[in-house]
């Protein structure tokens, strides 16, 4: 099977099912997908369609029941848990719907957290954290704790945490789902800007058509299968 050299993500004939008692629940069924490097991909679909599951598989926080997931030519679906953990730190940035910042840490410390796992010097960490916070426009809030920040600001910290390790792939699970319209627009502007400036590949799960419109390409999932692809650009 040949693949375009520019595909950063390849999902090949992936099945994902769960057991609920004796019942088998198929979440993803024979799903195949390629995401070119640098693309902003939106994933839409009704609840239970498998969007988040697909995102988790591509991000290496879950493994497929069948099939393979390749990211940057690495077959992550075959990696051990420990290797996957290290791989995630270096190659994937996560943006969560509810930010999930550690409440006891300042904005600076939250952003620095993934860097602690990479064995960088304090000076290197300081430089990367400062750059990330500057990129999201929060240089003046570094000492604030999450509780002292607005929802939009917290999500900016979440984005800074996602990009601080300079990953090739950023996955976002409904990043605007907990924000008001104005903040959501700002976050989407920021993501588009980061994609352009840093050349990141972004995978975003969303229910919001306005958010999806910012993506280069939108995939629709229904009952665990891709049913429609729409080029937005």
């Amino acid at each position, binding site marked *: 099977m040949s693949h375009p050299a520019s595909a950063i993500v390849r999902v090949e004939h992936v099945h994902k099912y769960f057991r609920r008692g004796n019942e088998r629940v198929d*979440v993803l069924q024979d799903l195949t997908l390629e995401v070119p490097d640098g693309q902003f991909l939106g994933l839409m*679909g009704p*609840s*239970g*369609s*498998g*969007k*988040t*599951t697909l995102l*988790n598989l591509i*991000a290496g*926080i*879950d493994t497929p029941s069948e099939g393979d997931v390749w990211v940057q030519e690495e077959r992550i679906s075959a990696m051990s*848990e*420990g290797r996957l*953990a*290290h791989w*995630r*730190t*270096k190659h994937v940035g*996560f943006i*969560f719907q509810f930010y*999930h910042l*550690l*409440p*006891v*840490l300042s904005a600076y410390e939250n952003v*620095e*957290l*993934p860097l*602690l*796992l990479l064995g960088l010097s304090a000076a290197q960490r300081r430089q990367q954290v400062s750059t990330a916070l500057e990129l999201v426009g929060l240089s003046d809030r570094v000492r604030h704790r999450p509780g002292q920040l607005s929802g939009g600001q917290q999500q900016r910290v979440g984005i800074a*945490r996602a990009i601080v390790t300079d990953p090739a792939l950023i996955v976002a*699970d*409904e990043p605007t789902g907990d924000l008001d319209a104005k903040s959501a627009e700002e976050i989407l502007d920021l993501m588009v800007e980061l994609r352009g400036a840093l050349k990141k590949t972004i995978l975003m*799960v969303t*229910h919001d058509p306005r958010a999806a419109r910012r993506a280069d390409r939108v995939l629709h999932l229904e009952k665990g299968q891709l049913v429609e692809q729409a080029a937005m650009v």
Partner: protein
Amino acid sequence: MKYLLLIYKNVGRNLLRSLLMVMGTMVLVLVVTLVWSVLAFIDKVTEEKSKDFKAIVSERWSAPSRMPYDYARVLAEGAARKDHPEDIHPDDSMTWQFFVGTLDRENMNFRNTMFGLACDPDKLLTMMMGLEKENLAGQQRREFETAVEKLKQTRNGIIIGHDHLKNLNAIIGNTRDTTLRDPIGRKFKLSGISTFTGLDLEFEIVGVFPPGRYDNFTAFNREYYQAAMDAYPGEHGGRQHPQAERNLSLVWLKMPDRASYNRIVEQINASSYLRNPEVKIEMASSAFGRFLEPFRDLLAGMRWLLAPACIVTLALVLANAISISVRERRTELAVMKVLGFRPLQIVLLVLGESVLMGLVAGLVSAGVTYAVINWGFGGVKFPIAFFDAFLIPINALYWGASVGAGAALVGSLFPAWFACQVKPAEVFAKVG
């Protein structure tokens, strides 16, 4: 370093819960420290030493022991014979002559009754357990040396324990002042009771024992005691005091090693001078062990039930608190895993928080216990055998930290394992 900072910050996440955990740990560490202080002292005195042996010589067939005072001279030399150069001598010795008297013969009670020891004052500094150079240092040592010097110079001087002095303040001074403000020079009279009846001794306080083990103890010059015995016939129609012939209770001997001890045992057993009455010599540890025999079950209960129960309770309390904390932070732990934290790092994070709290709480508890019990109360008042109070050893700091940290470690093992098993995909499962 940053990891430790994260652990530290997590401890402060829920201050009330952390504070309650710390307080619970402190209380249980306090109990364990008190119990172990008593047991450690008893273990120490009943443990057979490898050097600096102390032995006790007493009358073989009678209790309480009553030996002729002349025995002191022979025993101080280890019953070494002059014409036997191979015989050896003890490194040091101390005679003990007991005396019991009351401040008020008409209304005698425990408070106005005192137990006294007539001895050679110099030996208080070298032969008394806990008062030797290695066990008593600094200001307390200097003050006690001054007291002993005064005892040598003052014929009827007496060094008195804190509890006795408090009773004196209440009975003679008619005051509840227990601060022992300038007791030096205060005079009082003890009328002998029981087998010491007829011996009325007037004393002048020349010093106070360091607080703790000797709170219910007094020591005075044996020459004054002997002089009182000698004066007795003059005041009682020429009759000797019943104790006059045999008023030596014990003789303590110190030897460098077991071989010396064995040799001196042979010398004493072979001595024809020490025949009437016969004497026995035994290791101090054996003698203490014999005294403690009636308390064997109590001590075993403290050692094998009370202390372990406290530690298990502590571990369960901590396990419960850490479990709640882990359950509350399930999403946060999942986020950390998503960011790349490995299961072992999550385990260390949870264990670290718990151990940090246990360690600090245990150390603080033991430190406060050490200071308050030793300096504030003069030791743990736990009268057992002839021991009155038990000082908290400095090792308690190590015990406290170890018990706190150890119980926290054990208590948080399961919650930590639970934490590292968190699956991000399940935590974030919206199946969307």
